[in-house]
């Protein structure tokens, strides 16, 4: 009897592994193995036809740190994250509050906020070209009306990164709005009534009741926004190509450029590892946060 049960248990375990195996195999091939291989390759020098690549230890990492482009790109990406994350979240929250309020034409408002989310980043960039074109673009037409001189928004270092940032916020705010909208719908309306009876104004209600209740959503959105600040770089290909003079270059674009435009994969690999380390820290931080709240079983 006992023997039977043990056999049965082993059979089930085997069955479980078999079911998970295809997914695990593919995941190992395209996520785990490449992560390790990237690290391995980042330790070798770039080979040429005359000089084969040799083990170089952490030399590639040293090269990166010594390269001023690295610091420019890292700073750019920090600014990119530092601006897009909070601004998108604030926009998303405001949008959700409005899209949840009883206002006329609410479904139009909702779709207007959400539409950018379903466009490819490449298409979004094309749409925004129309705004940024110097002299003839929509922005310059408007500022020109008030007597300002035309600005080459994408072509000068002072404004290129900001222009790219605006497109990202435009693209992702509506997506994050959806999560807030979902959370808002789970908050009972009695709370607002109760707050009103207690004499709390609208702002007090938002700050003291709504925001704390939305905290789990904010954490979720925050993590997503953080991942996006690494991932969303497609528009650079259309808008600035990282220029002028690296002013709007972001890390992932730089990795692509090193690997596929300059064929310098060892340095691209080293940079990839640095990004993975950063993402790993984010992952660990989120798991700990989630564990504290046991959001899921």
């Amino acid at each position: 009897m006992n023997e039977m049960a043990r056999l049965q248990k082993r059979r089930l375990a085997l069955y479980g592994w078999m079911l998970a195996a295809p997914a695990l195999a593919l995941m190992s091939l395209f996520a785990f193995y490449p992560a390790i291989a990237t690290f391995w390759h980042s330790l070798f020098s770039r080979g040429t036809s005359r000089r084969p690549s040799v083990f170089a230890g952490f030399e590639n990492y040293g090269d990166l740190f010594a390269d001023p482009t690295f610091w420019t790109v890292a700073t750019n990406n920090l600014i990119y994250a530092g601006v897009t994350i909070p601004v998108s979240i604030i926009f998303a929250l405001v949008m959700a509050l409005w899209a949840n309020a009883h206002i006329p034409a609410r479904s139009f408002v909702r779709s207007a906020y959400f539409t950018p989310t379903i466009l490819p980043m490449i298409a979004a960039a094309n749409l925004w070209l129309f705004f940024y074109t110097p002299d003839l673009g929509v922005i310059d037409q408007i500022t020109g009306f008030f007597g300002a001189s035309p600005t080459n928004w994408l072509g000068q270092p002072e404004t290129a990164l900001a222009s790219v940032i605006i497109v990202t916020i435009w693209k992702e705010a509506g997506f994050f709005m959806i999560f807030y909208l979902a959370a808002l719908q789970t908050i009972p309306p009695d709370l607002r009534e109760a707050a009103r009876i207690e004499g709390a104004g609208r702002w007090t209600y938002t700050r003291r009741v709504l925001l704390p209740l939305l905290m789990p959503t904010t954490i979720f959105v925050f993590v997503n926004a953080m991942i996006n600040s690494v991932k969303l770089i497609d528009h650079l290909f259309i808008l600035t190509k990282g220029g002028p003079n690296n002013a709007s270059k972001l890390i992932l674009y730089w990795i692509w450029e090193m690997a596929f435009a300059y064929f310098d994969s060892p340095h691209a690999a080293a940079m990839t590892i640095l990004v993975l380390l950063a993402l790993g820290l984010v992952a660990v931080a989120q798991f700990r946060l989630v564990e504290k709240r046991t959001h899921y079983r």
Partner: protein
Amino acid sequence: MKTDTVSANTTLKLPDLDKVLDTLGAWVLAIVWISPLLFAAWAALQPSGTALGLDFSNPLTFENFVYVWGAVPWGGYFTNTVVLVTLILAGQLVLCTLAGFAFARFEFKGRDTVFILILLQLFILPEVLIVENYAIVSKLGLFDTALGIGLPYMASAFGIFLLRQAFKSVPIELEEAARIEGCSWMGVLWKVYVPAAKPVYLAYALVSIATHWNNFLWPLIVTNSPETRPLTVGLSLFGAPETGVDISVISAATIMTIAPLLMAFLIFQRQFIQAFLRAGIR
């Protein structure tokens, strides 16, 4: 405290002021948000070369669309995207269903460790591993094929996670009932779990389609012929400013590429938003 009471009183007396401001704010933001799309749609209908003048007196024309359609094999790109998106979705559905089932209903040694590894993959983005994945896909002889673009996305951690959650919430009694009727494990999965998780499947499918319809960087890297290139890559090659194509033409091409998904969105708006809602809730 006093100011709070006053503001509460005013909202009681003038309930509409807040609402008017809200409505105004919401509308202005909505118009600002949609304006890039509206401008592009309008520019696409302007005679080539005149769009940037913001001259509203020009007659509307479809010549840009005609020109764009003739200049690039869009039909091919469109087919490629559809094939790619279908292939990825089919792969994801099969693999994630099996794995999700395994993690939801089977006990095996190392299960929890493996599951954490899978969650970790939510953060190891395929986009970041382009260098190594490019080498792997080339070695497998899949460079410039739909399978080569799709394969890295098929074992989706997100999909496994979602389906595991969905399967876990199915009452075990249903499974036992099916058992008594003589169903095998596959029978149980197919007859009990899959139907119960239908809304999650729908949500996941929509998110997957939208994501991969719009994906760009990876397809850019692993394709180099019009026979496999998806729409986004085709659009980026066409729209590059240095090709000297003017804004009306770029707008026409952009509108044309986004039209299918945009139209689907407008028709299925409610389901679409619901789908995103479901898929996002962890």
